[in-house]
Each structure stands twice: as C-alpha cells, then as structure tokens.
C-alpha cells in the first residue's frame, strides 16, 4: 500500500515537467572512482539529460566547474543532471571524492 502510494507520487512528480520525455538521455556510470565511459557526446544547442549511476560501493560527487553542476550520488543510486542548451566544445567533469582517477569529458557537437 505504502509502496503504491509512493510510486504513484513518484509517477506524478516525474510526469510534471512536460518537455522532459522528448529530451535525449545520456547514460554514464561511475564505480569506485572510475567513470565509464570516460568520454561522452551530447547534442549542441539542445537540452538533454545525463543520468549518472553509481555502481560502486562508495559515494561519489559528480562535479564539473565548466558545466556548473555538482551532485552527490549515494552508492547504488543514480542522479539526473539536466544540461543544455550548450555551445559546441569540450567540458570536463570529475568525481570529487576520487579526483585522481575519476575524470571524464563531455563533448558537445
């Protein structure tokens, strides 16, 4: 019962932004300090969603000063990063809790 209510609420909330479904979705995963893939490609001058899934056992913070985004991801969870419209270019991102190894690039073209 409680689950049904929660999922109903969830459906209601995710349905709220009307334009969301037509956007491109790009998947990225991070596992204990490593992104896969390390290079992702997104569309220029369009809105899109980047879904970052944490498949590791430690928390990670998806951070990019160039994209102006910062998000903590608990292990086993995923977060949605709403991006764009962005001009073509290369944008670096990193895992702030593992900055030595967790490095990646978003190429917009």
């Amino acid at each position, binding site marked *: 019962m409680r689950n049904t209510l*929660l999922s109903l*609420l*969830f459906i209601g*909330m*995710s349905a*709220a*932004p009307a*334009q*969301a479904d037509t956007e491109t979705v790009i998947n990225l995963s991070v596992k*204990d300090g490593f992104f896969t893939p390390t290079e992702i490609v997104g569309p220029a001058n369009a*809105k899109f969603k980047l879904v970052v899934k944490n498949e*590791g*056992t*430690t*928390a990670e*913070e998806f951070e990019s*000063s*160039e*994209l*102006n*985004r*910062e998000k*903590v991801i*608990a*292990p086993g*969870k995923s*977060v*949605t*990063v*709403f*991006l*764009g*419209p*962005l*001009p073509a*270019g290369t*944008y*670096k991102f*990193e895992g702030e*809790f*593992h*900055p*030595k190894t967790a490095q990646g690039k978003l190429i917009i073209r």
Partner: protein
Amino acid sequence: MLSLLFVVAREFLEAVLIVSIIYAFLHKQQLSKQGRPYLLGGVAGGVLLSGLLALTLYRLSDWLEGQGLLYFEAGLFIVSAALMTQMVFWMRRVGHRMKAMIEGDLKESLHSSGFLGIVLVTALGIGREGSEVATYIYSLSLSEQFSVTSIATACLLGVVMALVFYKALTRGMTAMSLNTFFKVTSVFLFLTAGSLLLEATARLSETGILPDLVPVVWNSSHLIAPDSWVGQSLKLLIGYRPMPSLMMVLVYVGYWALIALLYKMNPAKPRGSVQPKKMKTGTEVDPVLNKASSSAS
C-alpha cells in the same frame, strides 16, 4: 584513509572559516560568554542537519529525483546567502554601537535578533558541507574498503585538524584591529554568500525555471584550470567559474551592487558624528529605527 581525511578537511574548511569569524567577532565585542551557547547550538544544529540531509539523500533520492532536490538545494543556498549577508550588517551595527548597547537597554534586543542569526548561519554552514561528508562516510562504512576503526580514526583526525585550524584562525583574527577584522571578514562573508547564490543560480537554471541567457559567456579554463590548486582555491573564495552563464554573471554582479547599495543606505558612523542637520534627510536616524530598517533588508 588519506583521501578520506582530505575530503573531510576540505568540506569543512568553509564551515570552519565561518564559525571562526563568528567566534572572533564575539570575542572582540566581549560577547563570547553570552554568544557561546548560541554558537555551540548552531554547531550542534549543523551536525544534526548534516545527518538529516545525508539521510534525505539516501532515503529520498529516488523520490526527489528530478527537480525536487534542485529546488530544495537552491532554497537552502539562497536562505544561507541572505542570512550571511544580514549577519555582516548585524555585526557591523553591533560593532559600532557596542558601547551604547552595553550601557543601555538595547542589550536585550541585541541578544534575540542577532544571536538567532548566529545559530542559523552556523547550522546551515555546517549542515551544507557536513551532509556531503556524512554521505561519503556512511557509504564508506557500508563498503568493505575501509574498516570502521580506520574511518573513525580519519574522522577524528579530520576534526582535530579542523580544530587546530580554527584555533589558529581565531587567534589570528582576534589579533587584528577591529577595523581590519571587519573589512576582511565582511569581504569574505559577502564572497561566500555570492558564491552560494551562484550555486543556487546553477540549480535553478538546471530546473529550467531560470534561463541561462547565454550558456557560456567566457571560457577561462585555459587561463585558470578549475581543477588546479589555484582554480580550486578561487572557487572556494570568490566562487570562480571558468565557464559561467550570463545569468550567473548578472546574479553575481547584482548581488555586489545590492551590497554597495545597502552600505550606502546604512553608513557606519561612529556614534558621536551624527550631526543634527543630517536628521532632516532621513538617512541618519536613531539606532532603533536604523536597526529596524536594515534588518528588514
């Protein structure tokens, strides 16, 4: 272990700076005795808030997925920035009116309004940064990577490092002249509030409610790389962004314009210099009125 220590230390740096400023201020005004319970209350509240926020991230992240969390965070940042700004003006007012207040009846009103601000600014400062540390530590304790003892040791070391830093800072700040202290700390707090507003702007533009106007106004990544030592420090201190949107630039400039305006409206004059003829203009009013008008801003 070492990386854990660095995360703890870095996340707490900003909170430690803010707590140090408040304590040094209270100490300078000989209010540390009255103020300490509020400051400690703020610290305790912040630790509690960290735990609650971290729990929210874990338990409700699917639920808040999408935009709910963005609005929540943006709200948190805006409230923090507003409180921090208000606190600077409060400190300034108290600083200049201290003598009168200690002698007069105003002491009571000083306690209630400003000290509540101290509790909130401290709690939100620690809560914001602390929730990230809490999430990180909690996930570490769930993974097999680190033993509970090594996590506890690292946390303890992190706290000790923060305390040492805090002691050094407060000592340095109490040694400053009152004037220098006000200048340095006001600028720091305004800068911090400004970069919180940038964070809020980024989140609101992510929800789509606030347009970017121009997504990338300039690109200074090649001049000062955001992941370099300099870039990181500048980000912490002045909210440096290598590729800001026009909206971020406008918010940042607008915030500083507002500060300039507030300074113009509340000129800090030593008590003796209030000239009777100035009363006509309405800009120089008695302390009580002045206090009320600036706490409304």
